[in-house]
Structures are given as structure tokens and as C-alpha cells.
């Protein structure tokens, strides 16, 4: 592998980014050893493992992990391999393992915190030096796990920023999503939509805060809804839920410009500071009164008025608090990404919210979604188009200013600043090379 020089890949301020960031498999391999090791990556939600022994399987970058509720009720994140021969201990997307994991190959067993429980016919390991082996220690465990109000994040590397320092003010978007439940509690509902893209995972991340594409790329989907609706309705016609969800995609540049973008350190940021495409959904009967009862009028109004659009959490997660969805952009290879789109129920809120959330998810995020078709076409054309030798640069200069980043800042809504924020952090973490394995 040739040496990767980050200065050749990301220009100062990330105003331009080299195509190898998206195309090169060596860059991808380094991302897996740096960006996805040194940062707090979203693993899952604790409502997916409500009882002791409940687990889900997922990946941190390309590292297969199990998220499991241990007998002491804590959520543990374990590397999904038997320390013996490497067999994955479980491979269902979710399930219950009871009090321990038992390898299906040779019946080695482990407690749900990864510690060794038993090996059949163990005397064969006497006087073999087994006591000093990696295998003896049990399953590898991710040492740094944080349960933030039900959201589970993990950092593979031993050293790095604390959870609070890494996310700083950006946690306010997750807070808002949770606070929208009168009980302050969310539950994952159903399996995720899973959507395979033949493009780099960062193209999807970039698109989450790209406010200059909806009215163009989605003219075919959102534009067609608008056209058909306008032909049958006037301003007073009550909008069906689906029309209410899709029409705002066709908002003007000026509208998106005014809504603003907020950035935080370490690559996090969100669109929709003062307004968003989620701001004008109809009221749901019974909700506001439940919120007032839970929080008091002033606080309830404040929570509901905060209708942020997309909040990107570095490196590969996005939440929409106002519609209770979460998308995870899972890297598979430089040119292969699986997008998972999850939905949450606001515990204690009327079912209309969950109906709206489920509708949004299938209309916008499904592999059968016409909006998804528009986007995938653009990403994959970019993945192909970037093979052009004549120009190796991806341009991200819209509204670029030197010294635009640092702490919490608000920018014009059509700025590509959050993309730049992402790549400035990306370059920083790519430079932190540490070959050590995770955990024990």
C-alpha cells in the first residue's frame, strides 16, 4: 500500500476533496483503522435489547459486533468472533442468547460481558501455554461504550476524546428527538430498511446536508407529487399526510438559504436551524396537552418548535428528531455502502406520530422509494464520473470562508460548510494511526 498523504486528499478547510477519498480502496482500509476506530460510532438503541441476554448484531466500520444486555443490565458491545477459531457466535440480526453465548462450532461459552465461561474437555489445554493466549481471555470487548439516553455509541480505540467532548452541543438533536416523547423515551419499531448503494459511504453523508439538490434531483418525485396535487387541490384543501411530507422538498433556494446550518467540532452539524421541511406538519390531537402535562407549557412549546432537519453525527449517522428517523451509512467497501433506515416510536404520544414516521421512512428511505431512486442515481453517477482523470477534485466551495469552523456556529442554509466540517474532521482522524486491536 502506498503512503496516503492527507494534504494531497483534502485542501485547506476542505474546500475541495480529492476523488481518491471516494474511490481508493487503500483510503477505505485506512478509514476503517482510524476514522472508525478513533471516534464514537453509533451501534444501536437500548430498546432493541430490552431484556437480559437480548442482542443485535451490527458493525463498527467493518468490525462485526454484538450489542447485548448483560446480566447486570448494562449494554455491552463485543466483537463477534469466537476467540478459538473466529466463528461468529451469533448471526441473527437480533435475538436472545440467554445467560451466555455458546459457540456453535466447539461449544466454547462466554458470559454476556464476553468473559470466558467454559471449554469442553478442558484438560487438553493443560501444559500447552494456553493460559497466556488471546483465546483464554474470552471474547474481545469494546472498552469504551456509552449509553446516552438509550443511544449506544462505542469507540474501538482505548484512547481518544471523551464521549461528551466528542459530541459537545450536537447531542441537543438527540435530546430533542427523545424529549418529543411525553415520557422522555423512544423505542425502535420494526427492522430497518436496508438499501445497497454502489458508491462511497461519504457521498450519502454529504447529501444529508446538501440543500441545493432537493428541488433538482427530486423534481421527478417530489415535483410530480406537487404537480398532481396542485391539479386537484386549492390552498384550502386539507393535505393528505403523504402530500404534507413530500411538498416541502420542492421549496426554493431562498427558503433553504434562510433555514440555516449549524456546525459543531469533530464533524457534526445540522440543517434547519430556524425552519425545516418538517416544520409545518399538522398538529395531532391530544399530543400538545400530554406534552404540557409532562414538561409545562413553556418547555413543551420549546421542544415542539425545534424542528431541525438532518443532524449528521460524525462519522456515519444521521437523525431527524422532528420525524423520529435514524439513518446509518454502513461502509462495506470504497464503492459499496448499505444504508439502514430505522424508526422510533415516541412513547406516550398518539399513534399518528408513528404512522407518519413509518410513512416518511418508506416514502423517502426505502429501496422502493422514488426519492431514494433519484438520490442513488446521483451517487452512483458520481462514483463513475470521478474516474475522469482530467479533474480529480470534488468541489465543496459554496459559501466557503476561511476560519468558518470552531465551536458552535451558524451558517447560511445553502452552504456546503457541513460537508467541509466532515472532511476537516475526517482528515484529522485519518491521521491518527494506531495498529493495536480493540479491547482485550
Amino acid at each position, binding site marked *: 500500500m502506498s503512503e496516503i498523504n492527507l494534504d494531497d486528499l483534502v485542501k485547506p478547510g476542505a474546500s475541495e476533496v480529492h476523488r481518491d477519498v471516494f474511490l481508493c480502496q487503500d483510503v477505505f482500509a485506512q478509514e476503517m483503522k482510524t476514522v472508525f476506530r478513533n471516534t464514537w460510532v453509533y451501534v444501536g438503541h437500548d430498546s432493541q435489547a430490552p431484556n437480559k441476554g437480548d442482542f443485535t448484531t451490527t458493525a463498527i466500520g467493518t468490525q462485526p459486533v454484538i450489542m447485548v444486555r448483560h446480566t447486570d443490565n448494562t449494554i455491552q458491545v463485543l466483537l463477534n468472533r469466537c476467540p478459538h477459531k473466529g466463528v461468529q457466535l451469533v448471526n441473527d440480526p437480533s435475538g436472545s442468547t440467554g445467560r451466555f453465548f455458546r459457540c456453535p462450532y466447539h461449544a466454547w461459552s462466554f458470559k454476556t460481558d464476553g468473559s470466558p465461561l467454559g471449554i469442553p474437555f478442558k484438560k487438553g489445554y493443560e501444559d500447552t501455554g494456553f493460559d497466556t493466549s488471546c483465546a483464554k481471555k474470552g471474547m474481545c470487548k469494546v472498552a469504551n461504550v456509552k449509553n446516552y439516553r438509550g443511544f449506544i455509541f462505542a469507540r474501538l480505540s482505548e484512547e481518544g476524546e471523551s464521549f461528551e467532548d466528542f459530541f459537545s452541543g450536537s447531542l441537543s438533536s438527540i435530546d430533542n428527538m427523545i424529549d418529543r416523547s411525553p415520557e422522555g423515551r423512544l423505542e425502535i*419499531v*420494526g427492522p430497518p430498511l436496508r438499501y445497497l448503494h454502489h458508491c462511497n459511504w461519504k457521498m450519502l453523508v454529504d447529501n444529508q446536508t446538501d440543500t441545493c439538490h432537493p428541488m433538482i434531483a427530486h423534481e421527478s418525485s417530489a415535483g410530480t407529487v406537487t404537480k398532481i396535487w396542485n391539479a386537484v387541490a386549492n390552498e384550502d384543501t386539507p393535505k393528505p399526510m*403523504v402530500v404534507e411530507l413530500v411538498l416541502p422538498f420542492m421549496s426554493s433556494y431562498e427558503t433553504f438559504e434562510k433555514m440555516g446550518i449549524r456546525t459543531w467540532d469533530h464533524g457534526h452539524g445540522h440543517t434547519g436551524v430556524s425552519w425545516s421541511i418538517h416544520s409545518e406538519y399538522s398538529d395531532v390531537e391530544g399530543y400538545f396537552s400530554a406534552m404540557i402535562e409532562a414538561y409545562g407549557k413553556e418547555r413543551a412549546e420549546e421542544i415542539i418548535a425545534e424542528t431541525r432537519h438532518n443532524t449528521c453525527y460524525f462519522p456515519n449517522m444521521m437523525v431527524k428528531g422532528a420525524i423520529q428517523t435514524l439513518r446509518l451509512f454502513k461502509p462495506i467497501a470504497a464503492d459499496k455502502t448499505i444504508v439502514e433506515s430505522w424508526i422510533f416510536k415516541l412513547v406516550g404520544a398518539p399513534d399518528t406520530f408513528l404512522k407518519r414516521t413509518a410513512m416518511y421512512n*418508506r416514502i423517502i428511505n*426505502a*429501496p422502493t422509494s422514488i426519492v431514494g431512486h433519484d438520490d442513488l442515481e446521483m451517487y452512483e453517477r458520481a462514483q463513475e464520473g470521478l474516474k475522469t482523470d482530467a479533474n480529480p477534485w470534488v468541489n465543496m466551495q459554496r459559501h466557503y470562508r476561511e476560519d468558518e469552523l470552531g465551536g458552535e456556529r451558524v451558517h447560511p442554509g445553502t452552504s456546503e460548510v457541513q460537508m467541509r466540517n466532515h472532511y476537516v474532521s475526517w482528515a484529522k482522524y485519518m491521521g491518527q494511526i494506531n495498529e493495536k486491536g480493540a479491547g482485550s
Partner: protein
Amino acid sequence: MSVSENDIIDFIYAEAALLDEHKFGDWLELFTDDGVYWMPLEFGQTEEHLTTSLMYEDKLLLTVRVERLSGERTFSQRPKSRCHHILQRPQILEMGEIIKTKTAFHYTETRLDEQFFLVGWAEHVLRQTDTGLKIVRKQVNLINPESAHRNIQLFV
């Protein structure tokens, strides 16, 4: 006006043929105004609204899809997709005011160099109207709804 079992079987075959021949406008006409096309996300899913589905399309959304397919700025249809249905002989489950059928399918969709294959069964609910048989509901059950799919752009 009564319909025979053969009329119903012919109707199901003809419906798939309209899709394979890209006569999407004619296909849309087969649905009643309150017709629904549903593709669940979970194998065996019964909940329609309070969990995610792959598709749950009323006539308005089906109309949007059909119109979009021929739109000038529908870039994901340049070039266009093609599809093909192989159906097993439909089973008639219920014959009355409401007619219910179940039909196993092998569906292929292709665009450019890509081709994929979906397998499952469709459950139709049909109603006799003044203008012939109409689809009140078409439920498409894939055997792998939870898989990481690529774009599915046409209609199974």
C-alpha cells in the same frame, strides 16, 4: 354479470402482462379509487401503518409513480428499466362480492448491466364493478423483504 374462475385467472395474468409491456397507465386503471398496493418489509408482517413497509401506495401515490416513470427529468429511468413476471397459475381463495387470489411469482427487473430477481407471492383482493374486475388491494410478499435491496423501480 358474473365472472368465472377462468375470467379471474385471465385477469391476474393480464395485469402482469401490462406491467411487462410498460402499459403503466392501463395498469393503474385496474385499481379502484380506494385501491392499495402493499409490499411489507417483514416476512409475515400484518401491521400496515404502525411499522415500516417497502411500499404502501394508495391511488395518488401509484399515479405519482406512473407519471414519474415517463417524466423528462426522471434520471434514474435514463435509460429505462424493464421487468418480467413469471406467474404460477393463480389460486382462487374466495369467490363472492369480494374475490381473493394468491399467485406465486418470479420477477426480474433490469436496467443497464444490472439484473435482479425477486420471488414471492401476490395476494389480490378484487371487486366486480360496472367497468369490470378491479383491484381493491394487491399485497406483494417477497421471500426476502428485509434484504439489502438495490433500487426496485417498477412494480412486482
